[in-house]
């Protein structure tokens, strides 16, 4: 029995480590500037946690293997060892606090930094179960919205106020977010109804969209292509279908796309 159990814990440890190192299932590709720091912190922590996990399981297996009861024998009468206790307490405390401080640095350098002034502003408003995207248009200003004017039946998903001159050139789409490559983008996140979460795995961006609040996030995409946006906060029955396409384009393609969209409205 004890051999089987020891081997089992060793197997759990080894298989897990092999699957992580082999990257059998791994992070999706990274296409944002700030994401590199997040990934490296994630991998660093994973390595530290992995080592601790592996050592603990292997030691547990070893102790089980080694210390089976022998007839007529007594166990070691061993109560405590303050030196050992002090070493592992201080040791773990140092590693854990250091990890949390280094993680906080990365968090602060991303979240607490405002995007540059030339950043493109986009507004993304979630609803059950779709994403409404709005670009300010050539005037650079978002028109007024009023929740009283919201009418999904008439495709006025955001409650745009047509009387406001700034509204006229606003460009809206549903479930398609186009952004230019290598240019900072600032996204204002809002929701019409319940809490949603704006999750773009390839960008390493996630932020809840909270009713009553407008929360900004920012990123710079570094690779053109088509990617996916998912909702990461339970929002109702079609939560799992709440998907938008993220199109990262060259600056020229993006300008064309905007013009084409504008002409459609």
């Amino acid at each position, binding site marked *: 029995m004890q051999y089987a159990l020891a081997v089992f814990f060793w197997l759990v440890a080894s298989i897990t480590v092999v699957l992580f190192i082999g990257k059998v299932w791994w992070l999706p590709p990274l296409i944002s500037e700030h994401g590199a720091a997040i990934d490296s*912190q*994630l991998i660093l922590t994973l390595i530290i946690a992995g080592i601790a996990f592996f050592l603990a399981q292997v030691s547990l297996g070893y102790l089980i293997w080694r210390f089976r009861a022998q007839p007529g024998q007594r166990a070691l009468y061993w109560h405590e060892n303050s030196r050992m206790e002090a070493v592992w307490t201080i040791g773990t405390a140092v590693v854990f606090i250091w990890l949390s401080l280094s993680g906080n640095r990365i968090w602060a350098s991303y979240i607490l930094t405002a995007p540059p002034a030339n950043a493109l502003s986009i507004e993304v408003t979630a609803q059950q179960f779709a994403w409404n995207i709005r670009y300010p248009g050539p005037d650079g200003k978002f028109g007024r919205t009023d929740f009283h004017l919201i009418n999904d039946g008439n495709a006025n998903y955001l409650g745009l106020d047509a009387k406001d001159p700034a509204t006229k050139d606003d460009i809206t789409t549903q479930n398609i977010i186009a952004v230019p490559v290598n240019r900072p983008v600032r996204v204002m996140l809002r929701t019409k109804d319940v809490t949603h979460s704006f999750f773009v795995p390839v960008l390493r961006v996630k932020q809840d969209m909270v009713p009553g609040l407008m929360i900004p996030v920012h990123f710079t995409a570094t690779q053109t292509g088509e990617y996916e946006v998912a909702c990461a906060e339970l929002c109702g029955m079609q939560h799992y279908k709440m998907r938008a396409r993220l199109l990262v384009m060259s600056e020229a393609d993006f300008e064309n796309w905007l013009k084409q969209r504008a002409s459609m409205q």
Partner: protein
Amino acid sequence: MASHSSHTLHGEVHHGFIRTYIFSTDHKVIGIQYLMLALFAVLLGMALSVFMRLRLAWPAEKWPSLEQVFSVGFAGGQMTPEFYLAMMTMHGTIMVFFVLTTAPLSGFGNYFLPIQIGARDMAFPVLNMLSFWVTFVSLAVMVSALLVTGGAPISGWTAYAPLSAVGEVAGPGLGTGQTLWVISIAIFCAASLLTALNFLCTTINLRARGMSLMRMPLTVWAWFTTAILALLAFPVLLGGGVLLLLDRIGGSSFFIPGGLVISDKLIPHEGGSPILWQHLFWFFGHPEVYIAILPGMGVTSHILSTFARKPIFAYKAMVSAIFAIGFISYIVWGHHMFMSGMSPFTSMVFSVSTMAVGVPSAIKTFNWLATLRGAQIRFTTPMLFALAFVSLFVTGGITGLLLAQPAIDIYLHDTSFVVAHFHLIMGVAAIFGIFAGIYYWFPKMFGRMMSAPLGRIHFWFTVVGVYAIFMPMHFMGISGAPRRYATLTEFTYLQHLQPVQLFISIAAFITIAAQFIFLYNFFVSMWKGEKAGMNPWESTSLEWVIPSPPPHDNFGEVEPVVHHGPYEYGVPGSPTDFVMQNAPAGSVAS
């Protein structure tokens, strides 16, 4: 120290069936009632997870036979996503409240806390009976949410407002089902509050002579600390629940801001804050995690020491670690909310405090391992579960290092990685603590042994099964799979995970099936098991100095006097390799 008041009935008491088994004030009967309630709840919660795993493994499959039974949930033969979410919500709720809170604390705690400290009963036996029956009502209300029109709520066990607050307009199950859910939770909070009060008074006031604090078994320390947590955590959820109920049926707006439009309908509320609900919920919710796991840690310490035939390593450090975990668990709740829109500065504070809770957890792990060094391990069924508890505690806990960092949570928050983390630590490890406790205390509770061969088979299926279920979820999370998705295949970047889903489902079905081995062993051994003596495991704590099962008043006329610590195994010079806590003082050097 002990002052048994007149409420304790001496000798044989002859009550009718109803007073003896239904409305009993005997802590032992109440403990078993709680365990049976938890057993019913865990079977129900497990059945709900079967539905979840069916949909996740075979998203497009049609189940005509299930449509016969659930005409709405399987409309057209296929399981609807709202049915999936209802199963998920009820699975989480029932498991967290009615299993993981009820069995380890109210079940084992009720039965064994008084006996282990040498008391005849709880401090307030009538209140104790009331706690159980209020919990029972709470469970009845919760189960009824499954049966009402519109079905069970779909807002998850966390019931985030405004989804949970605005009613049926936001989705099926959010009408009557959600209202019943809130009412049930509020009732549960009240009952748990009473239990906590009782545990605290009992531990402080009713200890036998010589049972100083530092001679209490670590199980008692764990229940005591858990009771402090419950005393301070449940009122907050109770308050939150009442406010949520008022938002739903009283027209108030604690959690609903103005201007919400759902399906083109303007919601007639304004001025509330959705984030406030999250603060109230998690101010309860994080200590709740420790309410679920601390008793398991206590039981594991107790059983490891018993079957290692060695004193627990660093008893004092273990006590301090339990208290440190309990205290720190109050200042970490914000780590559930890094992405919630609360201030990013707040996140940094919660990140540091969350990492800090890892330190006492690591101390406990080291001490468990050190307890095994130089041991004479007896591989009994409870010991197998306790050893696996240590393994699972490490596996589930270590991923906290990642999730405690807001920067990493930008990616991992609300993915399967989190599901894997909390299931292993507060679900599976806690359940292993419960199993260890049942196999260990069964002879005391029912006077008979459970079958060891069946126990081993149950152990192997379960330990292999839970690792097969929950390890792969880490990889799904790393791949970016959001949690609470009825299907992953709607997203291109997740489609390669479908084989993993299938693997997990099959592992889950096998593991669940194996639990019937346990049920068989449990119920058959109750009547047919080999007779157990007073102390079949050669343990030292006070429950083992009285008959199995114990008489109504536990110790009878003779109050035990305690002379030794709880883990005196392998003491040099003593005739046996264990010294009972009430052994005469001069018998060995201690």
